[in-house]
C-alpha cells in the first residue's frame, strides 16, 4: 500500500513551495549570470601578497595565473 497523504497540505502551501523554488532558482541563475558578466568585464588580477597560499587557493583557477 502506498503512503497516504493524510495531512491537508493545502493548495497554497504546495504552490508557494513551487513558486519559492522557482524564485530561489531564479536568484541563483541571476547571481551566476551577474558574476560571469562582472568577471568578463573586469577580469580579476591576483592580489600581491606575502602570505602563504593555502592548498585550496592553489587549486583555484585564478590562483595559478602569475
Amino acid at each position, binding site marked *: 500500500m502506498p503512503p497516504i497523504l*493524510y495531512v491537508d497540505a493545502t493548495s497554497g502551501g504546495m504552490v*508557494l513551495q513551487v513558486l519559492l*523554488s522557482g524564485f530561489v532558482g531564479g536568484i541563483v541563475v541571476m547571481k551566476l549570470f551577474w558574476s560571469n558578466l562582472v568577471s568578463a568585464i573586469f577580469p580579476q588580477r591576483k592580489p600581491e601578497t606575502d602570505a602563504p597560499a593555502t592548498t585550496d587557493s592553489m587549486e583555484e583557477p585564478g590562483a595559478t595565473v602569475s
Partner: protein
Amino acid sequence: MTLATDVRRETAPEIRLDPGSFRDPSGGVIHCGGRILRYYNHHAAEGFHRLSAEGVLRDLEASGLIVGSQPIEPRSDPALYAAVSAETRADVALIVEHPRVPFISYAYDWPFEMLRTAAVHQLDVLEVALERGYTVKDATSYNLQFRGPEPVFIDVASLEPHVEGKPWAGYAQFCRMFLNPLLLQALRGVSYQPWLRHSVEGIDAATLSRLLGLKNKMRPGVFVHVVLQAWLNRRFSAGLTLQRAAARPVPMSATLGLVRGMRKLLVALNQRRDKTTWVDYEAHLPYAAEARAAKERYVEEAVQAVQPAMLWDLGCNQGLYSTIAARHAGYVVAMDFDEAAVGGLYEKVRGSHDNVLPLVMDLMNPDPDQGWAQSERRGLAARGPADFVLGLALVHHLSISGNVPLRKFGEWLSAITHAGIVEFVPKSDPMVQRLLSTRPDVHTDYTAEAFESALSARFRIAERYPLPGSERILYRFIGR
C-alpha cells in the same frame, strides 16, 4: 487450572489504543500497563527497518532530536502482537517501545519561549532527515513533547523516505501550528494559548493575515508565509492545483532553503508582552525575610521526606519553590496562569533543571478533555493525579478573586493529588486586603477554621505550620 487462569487475567497488562492516536493510518500508540508502545502496519514497518538499517534513527536519537524506539520482535512476544492486533483490529507488522514522557503537555500549555523552541526543534528534525534522504510527513505541535525543559520529537512514524521533487507536505501545517501563533504574539502582542486551546488545528494564514497591519505584512518572512500563502489558498482550488503543483518538482535544496529561512525567522522573533505583576512578585514578596526563609526550608524538608515521583506546583509564579522541590522530587510540573512568569521560569530552568516542566495553566479554568470525542487531548485532571502538590499563596486567589468555596477547593484537590502542602493566607494579609479593595467582602466563610474543615473532609492534616513573622499558615496534608 482455574486459579492459574485467574492469576493470568489479573496480571495481563491492559492494552489500550491512545485516544489521540488515530489520524495516521500507518500505525498508532498503545498503552500497555505503564509502557508506551507503537505499532506499524507492513508498509510503515518496512520504512522503520530502513531507517534503522541506514543508521538514521540511531543518529536522530543520539542527538536528542527524537524519542528512542526499541523494537519488540514478533517471535519474542507473540502474545503481545496478538493482543495489539485484537485491540486495534489492524495489520500489526511491528511493535516498538518508547520511553515514557513524564507529563504530556500541549502547545496551548506552552509559553512563547517553549513554542518557539519546539518549532525550531521540528525544523531541526526535518533538516537532518532531509540530509539523509528522509522527510517528516506532517508538522503538528502534538508530535513534540517536553522532557523537563528539553523538547523531543515523539512521532517516529512521521519519518518517511523523501521523494525527490516533492514539496514538504507538512509546510502549511507547520505554519498553522507553530509559525502563525508565534507571529501573532510577537507582532501583535496577542497570546495564542486561548486560540490554540480552541482551535486544535492552529491558526490559518488567512486569519492571521486579517489581524496584521500593513507594516507587519510587508516584513519579508511574514509576506511570504502568511500573506502570499493566504492569497494562494484563496486563488487556487485544492484538488486540481495539488495535481498541477505535484507535477512541478521542488528540489530538495529549495525545501532545505525554506526550512533554514523559517528557522532564521523564528529565532529572530521576540515575544511582545506587557510586564505583569507576577514577573517581579518573587523579588518583592509581601512578607518578612524570616517568613520567606522558613517557608523555603519547610517546603524543602517536606518534599525531601516524601521524595515524590511527580510533584505539581500550582500557581508557581517564577518557580522559586518548583526549583527547590526539584532537588528532591522526580519530576516537577510548574503551572501558572501568567504566561510571562512561566516564560521567565522556562528560560531559568533550561540548561539547569532537567526535571522541571513549566506550563501555562489557569487553575480557574484548567485544560479540558477535548478534540475528537473529547478524548484526543487530555485535560489536566486526566493527566494526574500527582503524588504531591504545592499550593502556595494560591487559595486566596481562587477563593477571593474566583469565588471558589473552600469546600470545593478541597474536593478539587482530592481529585488531583494524594498529598501536599497548601498555604492559607488570612484576610488580614496585605495581599488579601489588596484583592478585597476592589470588591465587596462577601467571603464570610474565608477563615482558617473553615479552610481546615474543608481540607479535613478529604485529607488528613499531618501538620499545621504558622509561618514565623507572618499570619500565614502552611498545611501539610496526606490522603486518608
